[in-house]
């Protein structure tokens, strides 16, 4: 009896370093990182890329994605990436940031870089919580969400409502592409990959700022099993954070 020939149907891209991640079981960061690595491999631009790491669980992206990397201060990745891109306009520059980093302490740097139309790509992982510091309330925490700093649940009268970054980015003329995707199902992950690709494509085409928000889970700080956390993305996050493309000037520009 002959053995069936092995057929490789799924492999890690060469841009992803062969290293175990530090992420908790069920965390979606690993998927987000992989999508970026896949797109960089697809474009064949890893050798011309400069990544800008943020602060939080996302910081160690530089351990998993190949290429040159710079570590920014908390919230400043878009300002730092501005400096990199202005110094090296011929390179592909991108950031990988969480919600506390991009939407709280770095809100101004993020929005201003977007409004200037910096030719950079920003991958924004929204898991509605501060992961690395241990589960504090984030600017994206949902109404009623219990965190270590909102023990009675996020109260809009006291803390306001969660920021919708993809929509805000979509309002800025410097933004070439803004979309929100989710990492909770194969269909959503496939859509997210296309969005990440588009967010890099507008940088290649020098159309402006490319932005993708990825709705992600944090089972550890949500105090949920990975499966329950995955379900929460669809049942609680997507209704408040609708998936979709909020700005795309690439078709108008014929790209």
């Amino acid at each position, binding site marked *: 009896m002959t053995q069936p020939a092995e057929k490789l149907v799924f492999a890690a891209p060469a841009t992803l370093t062969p290293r175990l991640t530090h992420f908790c079981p069920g965390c979606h960061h690993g998927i987000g990182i992989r999508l970026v690595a896949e797109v960089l491999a697809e474009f064949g631009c890893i050798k011309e890329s400069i990544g800008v790491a943020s602060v939080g669980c996302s910081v160690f992206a530089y351990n998993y994605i190949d290429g040159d990397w710079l570590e920014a201060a908390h919230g400043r990745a878009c300002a730092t990436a501005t*400096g990199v891109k202005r110094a090296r306009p011929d390179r592909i520059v991108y950031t990988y940031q969480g919600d506390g980093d991009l939407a709280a302490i770095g809100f101004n740097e993020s929005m201003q870089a977007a409004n200037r139309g910096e030719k950079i790509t920003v991958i924004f992982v929204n898991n509605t919580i501060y992961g690395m510091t241990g589960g504090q309330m984030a600017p994206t925490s949902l109404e009623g969400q219990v965190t270590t700093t909102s023990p009675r649940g996020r109260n809009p009268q006291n803390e306001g409502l969660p920021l919708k970054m993809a929509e805000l980015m979509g309002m800025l003329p410097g933004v070439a592409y803004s979309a929100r995707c989710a990492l909770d199902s194969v269909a959503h992950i496939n859509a997210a990959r296309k969005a990440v690709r588009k967010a890099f494509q507008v940088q290649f085409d020098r159309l402006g700022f490319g932005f993708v928000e990825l709705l992600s889970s944090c089972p550890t700080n949500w105090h949920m099993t990975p499966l329950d956390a995955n379900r929460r993305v669809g049942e609680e996050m997507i209704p408040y954070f609708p998936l979709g493309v909020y700005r795309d000037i690439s078709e108008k520009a014929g790209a």
Partner: protein
Amino acid sequence: MSADERILIKGNEAVAYAAVSAGCKCFFGYPITPQNEIPELLSRLLPENGGQFVQAESEVGSANMLLGAGACGVRAMTSTSGPGIDLMQEGISYMVGSEIPAVIVNMSRGGPGLGSIDASQGDYFQATRGGSHGAGRTFVLAPSTCQECYDMVQEAFDLAFKYRTPVLVLGDAIVGQIKEPVLRHPPVRQPDDKASAWCLEGMGERAPRLLKSVYLDDGALAARNEMLEAKYKAMRADVRSECVDVDDAELVVVAFGSMGRIARSAVQMARAAGHKVGLVRPQTLFPFPSDLLDSLAAQGKRFLVIEQNAGQMVDDVRLAIRHHGDADFYGVMPGIFVDAEELLTPILNCLGGVK
């Protein structure tokens, strides 16, 4: 106009021209008085010279943009005044920790708080103690004339790349706003090309590079800080002062920046009146000319420190001469303009000539 022709310009304008001549390719800044001529002039000059000018959303933004450009091995600069330096401390700390070269000009003003837009030397501690959290230090140059603004900004880029560090140029409202003839010249030293050994440019065919300041593994941060401390010590190779009439001086006046040039005039007036007075004007504030002052103190000379603050550099002078004696201090409060005659009185008092 030829490059070696002297032109009448403000210290701020001298900073901008020097940056361009030194090969500065990126400027990031935010408006603040009294340094606005620097970004205004560079917003025109840099694009004309193949560079980038970005008016940032804040000094937090400009310092972190500076970090990004410096990480690429590109000569980059920002300028601001005291309150802006406060906001830049984060970026400065990360640049020190990540060994990223950059030039930061502080045309300082009065404080604390919004203070005033007049000259002040109240930022001495902030500049020379590293300013930010975590014990980092920056190289600090202190110009006293428009020509020195030009020369020191040129040199600041070389020092930044030599030591892979942010270099602070600490001026003030006087030296920024005064107009003097400035000889514009090509950089004295050749640009340091060693950036190719560490800068980010896309990995190409080499191994990937990472510039960072986080060191979490056992002992890693201690080793990192030992390396940085060794670098701060090595900076002493570039310590520099202007010495005037110190050889036979009984009293040495120590003053820096704008106060240094006013004090020099006062010292010359005292000399003309027959008093044996000299001047040491530190041109680098970190590293500080401690060895020079120590050797002068060993000769039995006495010291008077004059600053436009309530006493900051005097601490460094006292530390430098501690084996031999102490130093007197005369402070001028920020916002008060003094001339040489007003500084003559404390000098004569110190000599015992006037009571």
